[in-house]
């Protein structure tokens, strides 16, 4: 009785903005009672770059490159989403072949991003050899990007009304060959991620995010699918996803382990999606030019590797946008992250923080959190 009704002092452990486990600048203040986390105060704003404001000052066509720089890892999806927004308010019809090509590249980037994350996650839980192996395998995708687009990371092939480069028969062959090699390598890792006792011990039951809470706090992407909610923007059928047959991967575990399995299985699913898209891809043009200035507003939502990406684009009939609002999935996953950390111990922090796949630099168009605290 008396033991639990006292107010007392707690320790505050600052995590970041510079921290070995998470190279990106986010500051989390952990309020701990001995080892146990009592509360977490997130603090963002260390890499604010003013991209949204810059979008209002630039020509709307040049914004594609700006948007692609919101995030390095999933840059193609950012550019694609922005183009989709402009295409919607300027009534531009995108040729079907361009839609398929965009879908393929978006999925290639999902593979690249998930492999990157699987490696970082293995590193965060102290499984270094796995980290090396995953990243070695990831080189295949990066090399493939270089072969086909000329860049390892930034594809920069989006244009309003289509894409800049075609995937012809010879390139399609390269994609099929290289990805089948990579798929075999990833499948080899399946027993490790699914059964390894060390990984299970480190992740199972850590960072529980109950299903109801996940929806209520607005979690997105693998974070919410790891809590058993079938929430996937690809189901809305943008680009060519409407013609592809797939079922979003969900796990019911609600913990860090489930979120990891969702990402792993999604990686394998992406290979199948690419294969299917390459098979179904129709012949035809890849670009439909339209020089009308954007007027009106639109909300575009796509599925980035980390979850739902949200663009609000408003044009006013000039070559400059009235407003371009970007909400990246990590921003949506920070409130769930804060709740899932509470009650765990300090050694669990890397596992849980990594389990939402934080991409802080894309989140950062905002500044200090001011409010109740």
């Amino acid at each position, binding site marked *: 009785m008396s033991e639990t009704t006292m107010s007392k002092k707690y320790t505050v452990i600052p995590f970041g903005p510079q921290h070995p486990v998470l190279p990106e600048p986010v500051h989390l203040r952990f309020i701990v009672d001995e080892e146990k986390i009592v509360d977490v105060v997130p603090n963002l704003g260390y890499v604010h770059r003013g991209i949204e404001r810059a979008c209002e000052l630039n020509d709307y066509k040049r914004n594609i490159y700006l948007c692609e720089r919101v995030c390095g890892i999933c840059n193609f999806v950012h550019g694609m989403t922005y183009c989709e927004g402009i295409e919607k308010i300027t009534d531009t019809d995108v040729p079907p072949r361009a839609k398929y090509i965009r879908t393929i590249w978006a999925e290639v980037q999902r593979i690249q991003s998930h492999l990157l994350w699987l490696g970082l996650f293995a590193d965060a839980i102290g499984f270094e050899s796995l980290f090396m192996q995953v990243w070695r395998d990831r080189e295949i995708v990066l090399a493939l990007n270089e072969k086909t687009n000329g860049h390892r990371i930034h594809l920069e092939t989006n244009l309003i009304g289509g894409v800049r480069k075609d995937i012809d028969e010879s390139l399609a062959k390269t994609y099929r060959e290289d990805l089948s090699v990579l798929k075999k390598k990833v499948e080899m890792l399946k027993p490790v991620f699914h059964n390894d006792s060390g990984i299970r011990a480190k992740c199972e039951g850590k960072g529980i995010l109950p299903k109801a809470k996940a929806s209520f706090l607005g979690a997105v992407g693998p974070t919410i699918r790891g809590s058993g909610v079938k929430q996937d923007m690809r189901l*809305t059928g943008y680009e060519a996803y409407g013609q592809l047959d797939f079922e979003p991967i969900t796990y019911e575990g609600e913990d860090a382990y489930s979120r990891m399995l969702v990402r792993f299985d999604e990686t394998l699913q992406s290979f199948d999606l690419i294969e299917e898209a390459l098979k179904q891809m129709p012949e035809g043009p890849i670009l439909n030019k339209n020089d009308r200035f954007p007027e009106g507003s639109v909300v575009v939502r796509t599925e980035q590797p980390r979850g739902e990406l949200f663009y609000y684009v408003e044009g006013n009939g000039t070559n400059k946008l009235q407003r371009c609002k970007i909400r990246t999935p990590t921003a949506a996953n920070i409130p769930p992250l804060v709740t899932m950390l509470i009650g765990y111990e300090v050694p669990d922090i890397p596992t849980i923080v990594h389990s939402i796949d934080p991409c802080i630099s894309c989140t950062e168009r905002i500044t200090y959190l001011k409010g109740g605290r």
Partner: protein
Amino acid sequence: MTAQQYELKVKTEDLSAGKADMFLRLNELKAQNARLQTITALDHGEELEVIYNFERGTDEVNLHVRTPKREPIPSITGIFPSAFIAENEVQEHFQVKISGINVDFGGKMMKIEGATEVTLVKPAVGPEPFIKRFYGRCREECPAMVNAPKYIRQILQGKPQEGYSTVIEQAPLPAILGRVCFAPCQEGCRQEKNEEPIQIRLLKRFAADSMPSLKRKVKRAKATGRKVAVVGGGPSGVSCAFYLGMMGHEVTLYEKNDRCGGAMLWGIPKYRLPKNIMEDEIAARFEEAGVKLKAGKEVKSLKPLLKDHDAIFIGIGAVESYKLGIEGEEAEGVIDSRQLLSEVNAGDRLLNIGQTVAVVGGGNSSIDAARVARRLGASNVTMYYRRTEKEMPASPLEIHGATQEGVNFEYLITPVKVFPGKPLKLVLQYMQLGEPDESGRRRPVPIQGSEFTVVVDTVIKAIGQAVSIPKDYGVEVTRRGTIVTNENYETSLKNVYAGGDCVYGPSSVIEALRDGRNAASAIDRSFGGKGWSEPSIDINEFVGRPLNLEEIKSMERVEVRELSSEERVRNFDEVELGYNSSEAFREAYRCWRCDWNE
């Protein structure tokens, strides 16, 4: 559901609201399980348009709220807690004020005025980790190392019955100790610095009083087939028999009187220890440990016992009284205190000791004798002690109690001679203090020619008890008559152990209980066992942090309710009434928990 079926269903709905009805709309959306995506704002010069983007099912719902720029916008974190990031963003980009942003997920970070960022209103839930454990000063002071801090906490947690079992781990008779123990633990208590130690003895009594029946449900260890005889049913014998029984040995206890209890039976007045409680508790322990009692059977020689037992424990106590060594000591009307006390305490017979009584001696048992004499109807009871009050071995509390009951004290006086007759004539002599003797107290020296005579009905000798071991036992004894033992409580005979008053002269119940327990351990180890588990710090015990120490220090001791002094001298009812549960809680609350960390 595949994407093809899904695709066409996505719709966009635009709602607009003012500041007045936006919460109505938001609550509707929450009821429809809408998920907040983000908050966008548009700058329209004087006005600001805030757009709340939601996903409802598969639909996109945008709530547009238009508001003048200078006016603050109410925060929606009360309905959608995850909005705090987006609201901060809008606030930063558009120079508007959003009022009442509440970054609160668990209800714990609600800031109160004047609080620092690390002061939380609500505490963490669940057990708190330990830092460092000590025995605690009270436990270190106790001869039997009874875990006083633990049972004080158990009483505080509302579990006094568990506290009763905690005491029994080290001393098997809590109900008796709670009444008669001289409570060295209270001298060790840190609250003693404030001159008001925690009444640990009374808390122990409260723990015992809270038991519906003194018999607990416990399991004995697996039977070992070893047989042990315990000679003497006093505290050391009862303790030894209990622990041996709990360790699985077959124990037979021999007691020469009809009733067990030994010095507790005859030496402690009924008003301090009601005999029915004592007998209940001893019987409960015997029942738990499966001890066979052979009462009324005096053991004159150990040889027959050694034949059919693997070990013997001697705990026969100190029952002989010292003699005054003066002329006329054998006269009728001169009785020793043991005789008086055992007649009164153990029996129901009331002695006729007349109106005027002289008590010779200065120990606790002399004071007991004097107080008993008051209860037997003597109107004029005087204690004669040959030194001063400072040197008196009796406890100040006892002296105080006796004074309250009308016992007179005369110091620096010693008896010289008794003239037989009815009434008796007692010749006394004044003393003065000389050089200190080997006990450190100043030796009394008679003042020649200072003799004077008083007329008394009864003289009570109360200058202490001596040990007398029957010669047939064959154990080695010291010059004072006590049994010689080594650190394992072994005597000079093989497989014969001894403890209690018969080893070091009259002492206390708690020391006798400790001897019994340690001897039982030694006997068990000689059989190849591990002995009774020694007291160690329970590292897993849940201990809360001390609360506000200043508040605890300023709390006053809870006085125990007692019978009034007029009532006391009329009968032999228990004087102390013990704590009730709220008093016990308040007293236990004063514990600093200094055993936990300092």
